[in-house]
């Protein structure tokens, strides 16, 4: 047993650090650090840096431009990128569709779409969820009917993150009503510029626009946009979900948020002393820090297992549940730390150009809003209730 990174892993971590130090602009990292909105151009700028380094799609096979990182390397990169306040890479094309294409797509599809993801030509979004479905994916009703060499798609997707930035959407659609609900589902790639597609914003409780509804009204999709075989989409969807195994525990995100929250607590004053020295608040911080440190090891144990070939099973459900609880607890502590200055909120202050003097401390504005926004963590990507069902069924046999 050795709980430390080995020498290769340390070399890799140092490379990653050096890369961030050199290539991540202070402008971008400050936007991330202070919770400003990222424009599409910001994300493109950062993707280009990563692509130049060969790290934009680190989990793809090398033949397609990937780096074939181990799970532990992915984890290291994730911790470092949070620590450096680098923008998140949107996973829809690079991390979600691509593995499906690589495993199940045709040669034509691979050689057409994969390079365009890397060079930023195509932005992808995801069309899985439907209204009223929630964590019950297989209940989908968007249908695609074959008409000559096209499918005609009708229906609605929802919770489509950054759909308003996207050129393409990959969708689960119903191509047959026979058999079980999981049968008769197909996996289609659809051009967002197709006639009949409408994107409507969903405004979240913090007033922000990050997700959308996407409506399909007789949208014509060429049959060559089908991935794999018709009616086999559920298989690909499940592959996609189990493939997306890193980050479930939010370790990198939580470590960075914890550090930032502790920094806030050391600057906020209570009874004439830094809040971080208040016994009650210090105890709250210590509890979540202890949980997070244990969680980091729990996550690494799972990742090391994964690297030695074990399939990621219900462990990812366990990581999801506790990881989101910890992440949300840190958000809660951050808002508490601010005291009355958690109250003021300016949406404009989240724009890059905003230069007015902040109300309260310069770190205050996004904090309460982030607390509310991150309530999604225990809801999206399979609610924590669903995850507990899975744990109970698979680990306890109940």
């Amino acid at each position: 047993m050795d709980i430390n990174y080995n020498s290769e892993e340390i070399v890799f971590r140092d490379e990653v650090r050096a890369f961030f130090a050199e290539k991540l602009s202070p402008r971008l990292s400050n936007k991330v650090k202070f919770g400003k909105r990222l424009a599409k151009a910001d994300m493109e700028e950062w993707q280009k840096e990563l692509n130049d380094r060969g790290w934009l799609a680190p989990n793809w096979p090398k033949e397609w431009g990937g780096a074939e990182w181990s799970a532990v390397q992915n984890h290291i990169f994730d911790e470092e990128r949070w620590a450096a306040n680098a923008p998140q890479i949107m996973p829809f094309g690079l991390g979600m569709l691509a593995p499906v294409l690589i495993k199940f797509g045709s040669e034509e599809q691979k050689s057409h779409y994969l390079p365009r993801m890397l060079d930023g030509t195509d932005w992808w979004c995801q069309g899985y969820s439907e209204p009223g479905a929630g964590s019950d994916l297989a209940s989908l009703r968007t249908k695609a009917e074959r008409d000559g060499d096209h499918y005609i798609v009708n229906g609605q997707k929802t919770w489509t993150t950054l759909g308003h930035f996207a050129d393409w959407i990959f969708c689960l659609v119903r191509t047959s009503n026979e058999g079980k609900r999981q049968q008769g589902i197909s996996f289609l790639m659809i051009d967002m510029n197709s006639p009949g597609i409408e994107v409507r914003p969903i405004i979240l409780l913090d007033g922000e626009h990050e997700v959308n509804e996407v409506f399909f009204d007789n949208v014509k999709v060429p049959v060559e946009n089908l991935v794999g075989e018709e009616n086999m989409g559920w298989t690909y969807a499940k592959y996609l979900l189990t493939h997306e195994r890193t980050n479930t525990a939010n370790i990198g995100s939580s470590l960075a948020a914890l550090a930032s929250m502790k920094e806030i607590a050391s600057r906020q004053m209570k009874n004439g002393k830094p809040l971080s020295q208040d016994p009650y608040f210090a105890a709250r911080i210590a509890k979540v820090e202890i949980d997070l440190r244990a969680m980091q090891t729990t996550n690494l144990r799972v990742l090391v297992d994964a690297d030695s070939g074990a399939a990621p099973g219900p462990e990812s459900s366990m990581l999801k549940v506790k990881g989101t609880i910890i992440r949300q607890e840190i958000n809660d502590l951050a808002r508490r730390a601010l005291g009355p200055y958690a109250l003021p909120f300016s949406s404009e202050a989240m724009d890059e150009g905003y230069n007015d003097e902040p109300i309260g401390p310069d770190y205050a504005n996004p904090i309460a809003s982030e607390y509310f926004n991150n309530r999604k963590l225990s809801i999206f990507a399979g609610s924590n209730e669903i995850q507990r069902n899975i744990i109970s069924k698979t680990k306890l046999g109940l």
Partner: protein
Amino acid sequence: MDFNLSDDRRMLSETLSRFLGDKYSIEKRHECAASDDGFSRDMWNEFAELGIVGALFSEENGGFGGGGEDINVVFEQLGRALVVEPFLPTLLAGSLISELGSDAQKEMLEGVISGEKLIAFAHGEPGSRYEIERVTAKAEKAGDGWQLNGNKSVVLGGGAADTLIISARTSGDEDSANGISLFVVDAGAAGLDVRSFGTVDGYPAAEIAMRNVSGELLGNEGEAFEAIEKAYGRATLAVCAEAMGAMDVAKDFTVEYMHQRKQFGVEIGKFQVLQHRMADVLIELEQMRSSIINASGHMNDDRVIRERMVSSAKHLAGRIGRQVAEEAIQIHGGNGMTWEYAVSHYAKRIIMIDHLFGDTDHHLERYISIGA
């Protein structure tokens, strides 16, 4: 022992409830919050006409209530509709004027109760957090009157107030309960800089900077702490009642949603985990209600019992509020995350009340220190 409302107060509650049901839909509320003032002056006048502002003042001060139970009844209803009009600033500043004002100063209460005049209390400062005795703004004698310098932060209703009650130190260390004085300041006074903003849950507030601002003393010099603590106690009770109303609605929305929403072909209300979590919510809401009853019932008792009960209620409002708000969002799933579903706004208000007049930790600590 009797836990029923008197007939008067039941009528007050029903009147306000009916009025809000008719006139204060969630859409109307968003409209009020999004306006320039951050609330609606027309609505405020209607509330005043209905006598709701007067319910916060005693008869000797021109109102017809002003007790702990009146505060409860009014604010619970306000919480049920997420009313953004300036009841809280009015209660705070009004309590101080009622308690300490000279006859001449009390004259302004008539206009307050009729809705013509808006008042607010500027007390918190950038570094004071929830400590009500920490005051660094300074007041010095200048001729007949006083001159104020310093900063006040997150002043509820500060932007629209015609008259501000402002605390400032006239002697003592910056965290001493002795030496704090109150001043009546006209909103148009020279040297007064008021920067308005909205809170994350949609209520108007302001940052205030003072440079040689003229003020008139309210009460005795250096002896304002006791009145401030009492006014804060009343306002704390008010936001607890407001949270109670908001929590009750959030709970109702959630139970209704559990009946309507299906997943895997069944109502989600059939899932036992959600049932048990809502059973716990119900239990805690009764606890919340009991603690508010205790606080309002002891509102006129000695400081130790009064403030311990106030702090108990606010401690629970923070603890139970978080549970109720987070369950409401979680059980609503993605929909609970949206602006469109009203429950999200209730959740925001419930959580942010934790940041008014001391959060759950602050009041636990205060409960301990007052008892010792």
